[in-house]
């Protein structure tokens, strides 16, 4: 008999007042018993609506059935037939708008905790079999270059390596992982997990070259002509930060979320031993409502800020951030100012931030994105006293590769144009996926695109 509890099995967590002072993982994960009990909530539906909600179509009821039986290794094998990074996806996917949104159990009560179960299986595997490295497949003699080591590049590299391709990943930073290492904080995604995934790729023969800024040190054409790569996958993401263009954005104390998070996550400026500095703030305003904004706000709190505000121009229901992160942020003492839009950052007279002037917004008619458009309320301006402002209003693709590669077409937002069926760009043999194509989106969509491109590259090179 299935477990007919209407609520998900709770996941153990660090207490809010303790965790908002450290960078250790907030959610501690299920025990074996908890996982089995939660897995028994799955009805094993014949039509499997959950699978269609997953961008890489993980065989969800099948793996959950194995968990319910206590066959965790089998569950892992089912998941990894379609998802190479379950420990990552189980933690960072917005399940409420993907797999779990389609779960039948969600009609009356809470959906099955698919993400938590996926995470459990991946963590269990890592604990019990994590030291077993994959074998290096026999080489088929063809070389593929992957630009960028974020989720799309890692997924593409993994699938191609399995097929025997000689894969080289070119990464601009000194550490591979993309947003998984510089963006998402340790308290949401431990970096050891990311490193383990990269180690597995290395064991399969994938060569990771860091400190390689493609477009500067080597062009795409040089990779093809001089270095004899047979195909290329561009997974360079959307790392170019946007600013609002309001007065005071150049003051000392104004960061882009990318800079703030890079200093914290990649450069580890919150650990004494590391040299990269970060501003010590008393009060911080984070502008924006996505996952990046939540991450920045929760980091600011952990760095000791007494007051941390999220300033978001729409209302709570329009926030694009993961529900769980919004919930965690609230528990940790982040104050949410909904329907507020910054108009000016104030100067204390010495070039430093001393406040942010906001205006109250109200929601009008839906705009092109389908979300109700915020409209300013006249005469509603007020000032929040802050010494730091983090701008987290979105990013777009970096122009470095498109501006140095002829024939690579982009749309007006600077995103690479690809054939939707194959992920091939406007140049033969050059494929792209992830945020470089879609603009800022999710880890799992990027991985899905990387996998699709790997399949197309394989077909292209097999026939070449």
């Amino acid at each position, binding site marked *: 008999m299935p477990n007919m509890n209407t609520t998900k099995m709770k996941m153990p967590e660090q207490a809010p007042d303790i965790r908002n002072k450290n960078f250790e993982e907030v959610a501690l994960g299920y025990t074996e018993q908890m996982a089995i009990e939660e897995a028994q909530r799955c009805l094993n539906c014949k039509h499997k609506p959950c699978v269609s909600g997953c961008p890489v179509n993980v065989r969800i009821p099948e793996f959950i059935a194995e968990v319910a039986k206590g066959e965790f290794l089998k569950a892992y094998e089912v998941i990894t037939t379609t998802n190479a990074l379950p420990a990552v996806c189980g933690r960072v996917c917005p399940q409420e708008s993907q797999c779990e949104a389609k779960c039948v159990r969600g009609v009356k009560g809470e959906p099955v905790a698919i993400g938590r179960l996926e995470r459990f299986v991946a963590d269990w595997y890592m604990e019990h079999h994590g030291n077993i490295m994959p074998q290096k497949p026999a080489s088929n003699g063809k070389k593929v270059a992957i630009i960028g080591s974020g989720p799309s590049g890692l997924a593409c590299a993994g699938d191609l390596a399995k097929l025997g391709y000689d894969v080289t990943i070119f990464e601009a930073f000194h550490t591979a992982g993309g947003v998984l290492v510089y963006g998402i904080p340790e308290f949401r995604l431990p970096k050891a997990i990311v490193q383990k995934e990269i180690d597995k790729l290395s064991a399969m023969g994938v060569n990771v070259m860091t*400190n390689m800024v493609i477009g500067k040190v080597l062009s795409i054409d040089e990779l093809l002509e001089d270095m004899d790569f047979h195909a290329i996958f561009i997974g360079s993401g959307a790392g170019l930060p946007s600013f609002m263009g309001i007065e005071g954005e150049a003051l000392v104390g104004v960061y882009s979320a990318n800079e703030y998070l890079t200093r914290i996550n990649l450069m580890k400026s919150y650990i004494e031993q590391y*040299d990269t500095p970060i501003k010590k703030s008393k009060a911080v305003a984070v502008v924006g409502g996505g996952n990046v904004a939540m991450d920045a706000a929760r980091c600011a709190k952990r760095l000791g800020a007494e007051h941390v505000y999220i300033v978001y121009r729409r209302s709570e229901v329009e926030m694009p951030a993961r529900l769980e992160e919004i919930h965690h942020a609230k528990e940790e003492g982040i104050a949410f100012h909904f329907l507020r839009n910054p108009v000016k950052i104030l100067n204390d007279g010495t*070039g430093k931030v001393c406040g942010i002037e906001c205006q109250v917004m109200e929601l009008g008619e839906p705009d092109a994105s389908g979300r109700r458009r915020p409209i300013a309320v006249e005469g509603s301006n007020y000032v929040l006293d802050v010494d730091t402002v983090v701008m987290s209003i979105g990013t777009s693709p970096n122009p470095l590769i498109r501006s140095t590669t002829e024939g690579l077409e982009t749309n007006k937002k600077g995103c690479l144009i690809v054939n939707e069926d194959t992920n091939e760009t406007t140049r033969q043999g050059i494929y792209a996926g992830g945020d470089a194509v879609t603009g800022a989106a999710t880890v799992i969509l990027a991985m899905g695109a990387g996998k699709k491109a790997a399949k197309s590259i394989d077909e292209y090179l097999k026939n070449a």
Partner: protein
Amino acid sequence: MFKIVSKKELNEAVTMLEIEAPFVAKKAKAGQFIIFRVDEYSERVPLTIADYDREKGTVTVIFQKVGLSTKLLGAKKEGESITDFVGPLGVATDYENFKKVAVIGGGVGCAIAYPQAKALHKMGVEVDVIVGFRNKDIVILEDEMKAVSTNYYLTTDDGSYGEKGFVTDKLKSLIEAGNNYDAVIAIGPIPMMKFVSIATKPYDIKTIVSLNPIMIDGTGMCGGCRVTVGGKIKFACVDGPDFDGHKVDFDELMNRNSIYKEREAEEAQTHICRLTGEKR
């Protein structure tokens, strides 16, 4: 890992390192920079490329030991390695169709002015080099600069070597004496670049400055290095580091560069050296 092939102390505070980095050496051009990281705990710090040898696969950087990271780098010996060295970054200097150019170097800025003068000299451009130092003891690259300049002028603030005065004084007198420069390239401390730009403005001489804001990634993904040029936000790491000196908001740049002053001062007092275990 990137190996230090040779090391030379140019004066008490300024060090020259030649580093093995074949990919960077192959593509480097005057005006571009690299980002280095000494070890796994270090920060990422930008340095302009002072020279390169494409055949040997080496890149030369010259830097002043002013803070933690430059001291760590300066403590490295010949044959030792650093963990990261990425580049070439930024846009190379655009020399258009210059026939006569004044290249101005202030202090350690001479290290960055040198490749500019060298590149122009090689192109057959008439190059007047004006360099300025606080005093005789810190003069660097005198022979190297002379070798690539048509005329070489050296000033010291205290008159202990060359002419007494500032580079701006010398520049003004050369312009007034009838030297028609197509461009002035000024590289050095921010106030120096600011005053050179002010000096050339009335004569409407194109003035190129090389800006040195705080950077992290150096590839355009964070905007930490943003500067206001002609009223617009630019990222120095991808749009620069060269900009039109007449359009740069130098005061804003100086303010932005002060953000970690307190932390740096604190560090100088209390930081424990990873190399020796001593306080630095």
